[in-house]
């Protein structure tokens, strides 16, 4: 029961409605501002604190450029592999039956739950010079995995694995059997059916998954700091570079490089929204 100042009972529905309309909105907006926008704003202020010249100098330093470039290229390679394998896996999970399928489906989410630093340690244990795999790769094939670019990509593949699968799978499930059957009754091969009927429907979902996993790997730190050598210009990714700058007390340079990552991430977020919107349109 609610009463106004004159003691007259007010309609509780009215106050609820008003709170629902404005209260919840303020909570949502206030939260976004306080906990997301303000920190993001602060880093931009920090990055530009010493002026545009210094900002430009910080992001065009050779180690900074090669760190950002290494992050973007290794993330891009990871994304391409993930798109192919992720789409294939989602298709297999939706269209085929096999023993252990439920377990498989659960395991897909595992990388979400494993602390990424543990991911890094697992890779070191697996590909280290003391293991058979590590020895075979380095002695027989001359491939260095750990503390080199392949190690970074392997870590990103692990971390980014679920994204494409989990965005494509629900869309595949929604495709009516009638649509694919219709294609097959008019004589289309299963490849043609996939390419001409299924693919156009799941394409926005694939792109969304690709962008999400790309964005995720831009910021990956825990596993990379374990498997990459942190050598400037060679194996230092953008986040490892940021860490070094923060630790060296160089906040301005760290913030400037963060702004570049932020910009890329922001572009990706907009991209994801565009694809989502198209998918729902």
């Amino acid at each position, binding site marked *: 029961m609610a009463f106004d100042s004159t003691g007259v009972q007010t309609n509780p529905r009215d106050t609820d409605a008003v709170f629902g309309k404005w209260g919840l909105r303020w909570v949502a907006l206030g939260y976004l501002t306080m906990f997301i926008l303000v920190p993001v704003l602060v880093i931009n202020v920090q990055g530009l604190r010493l002026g545009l010249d210094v900002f430009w100098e910080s992001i065009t*330093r*050779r*180690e900074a450029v*090669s760190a950002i470039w290494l992050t973007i290229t290794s993330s891009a390679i990871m994304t391409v592999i993930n798109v192919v394998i992720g789409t294939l896996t989602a298709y297999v999970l939706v269209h085929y039956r096999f023993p252990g399928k439920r377990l498989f489906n659960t395991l897909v989410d595992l990388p979400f739950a494993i602390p990424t630093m543990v991911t890094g340690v697992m890779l*070191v244990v697996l590909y*280290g*010079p*003391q293991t058979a795999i590590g020895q075979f790769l380095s002695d027989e094939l001359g491939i260095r995995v*750990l*503390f080199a670019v392949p190690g970074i990509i392997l870590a990103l593949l692990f971390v980014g694995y679920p994204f494409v699968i989990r965005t494509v799978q629900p869309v595949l499930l929604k495709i009516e059997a009638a649509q694919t059957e219709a294609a097959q009754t008019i004589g289309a091969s299963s490849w043609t059916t996939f390419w001409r009927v299924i693919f156009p429907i799941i394409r926005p979902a694939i792109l969304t998954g690709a962008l999400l996993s790309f964005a995720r790997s831009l910021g990956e730190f825990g596993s990379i*700091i374990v498997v990459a*050598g*942190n*050598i*400037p*210009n*060679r194996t230092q990714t953008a986040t490892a570079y940021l*860490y*070094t*700058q923060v*630790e*060296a*007390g*160089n906040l301005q340079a760290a913030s400037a490089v963060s702004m570049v990552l932020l910009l890329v991430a922001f572009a990706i977020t907009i991209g994801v929204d565009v694809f989502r919107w198209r998918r729902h349109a």
Partner: protein
Amino acid sequence: MKHLKLTLAAAGLLALSAFAPVAAQDAPEPITLTLAGYAVPREAYGDIIPLFQRYWLDQTGQQVIVLESYQASGAQSRAVAGGFAADVVALSIEPDITRLVDAGLVSEDWKDDNPYSGIVTQSLVVLAVRADNPKNILDWADLAAEGVEIITPDPATSGGAQWNILGAAGAAERGFVPGYEGETAVADFLTALAGNVLVFDRDGRESYLTFERGIGDVAITYENEVIGAALAGGTDAYVYPASTILIENPVAVVDTYVDQNGTREVAEAFVEFLWTADAQRAFANRGFRPVTPEVRAQYGLAEEGEEIAEAGAGAVEVNASIVYPAVEDEFTIEHFGGWSEARATYFGDEGLFTRIAAEIQG
């Protein structure tokens, strides 16, 4: 990584006290002491803290709960400067304490009244190699050879890494690295060395663990790490360069925080305890060179002709299997004119090593 754990011994004492209600009634409330250390001496403090807890209990009847945090020296120092209210800091290099002095947390005269200038342990920069030394690494010069893979922590984040680089630089400057002579000896040698580094880990401990996992041919590391590894049954070997730097690790009470926490008395007692014969032997048994003359004599480190009072027996015995050999040319940070000079010359924004690291060929 930050590790914060309740010392088991303290927990044990607390558990015991539950069964002794009569004694507990008169005993003062337990006091909590927070120790912020650099990564490497964690095991040594694991030995010393229970000794101190017993000592403090005997002296005052009060239990001490010690909370321990270990990470790279620089990171630890920044954490304390940023508000991590530790009572005592045990760091790798003096500049990490100077940062706390500049932040107004540690008083400016922190090392003035102390006979050891706040230095609690010493060590040497040494080279850890594989068991049968397949790359035949015998001294600094061999690190610059083609195809040698070096493991050393990142001097941007690790105090220990700065000791390593200064050890290499000093050896070159003092003419102990054949093939690198003249004006550009140091720059040329450091450039060759940096080009061979395979992993720049975040702190000294992590770096040595990477080496122990079988990665790299040689780790630039500390005598205490290799002695510790040998005591733990490790099979890797190590060599003493003919010329190397003497590492000196400082300890200080964080004045501002002990006054806030009401822990000044116990914090000062803890720091003083680190120079007792037992604590110094506990450090020495973990591979750190002790600093007090009596304990140095027990480990064969006494200066010639020095007259030393015999160290009394205590709770910690001398481990006679540990040898601390002398090297041909041992130098200290004073070779570089002190820390602020060394930092500016090598690790500042325009420092020699900062520039060399930025120019590593991709």
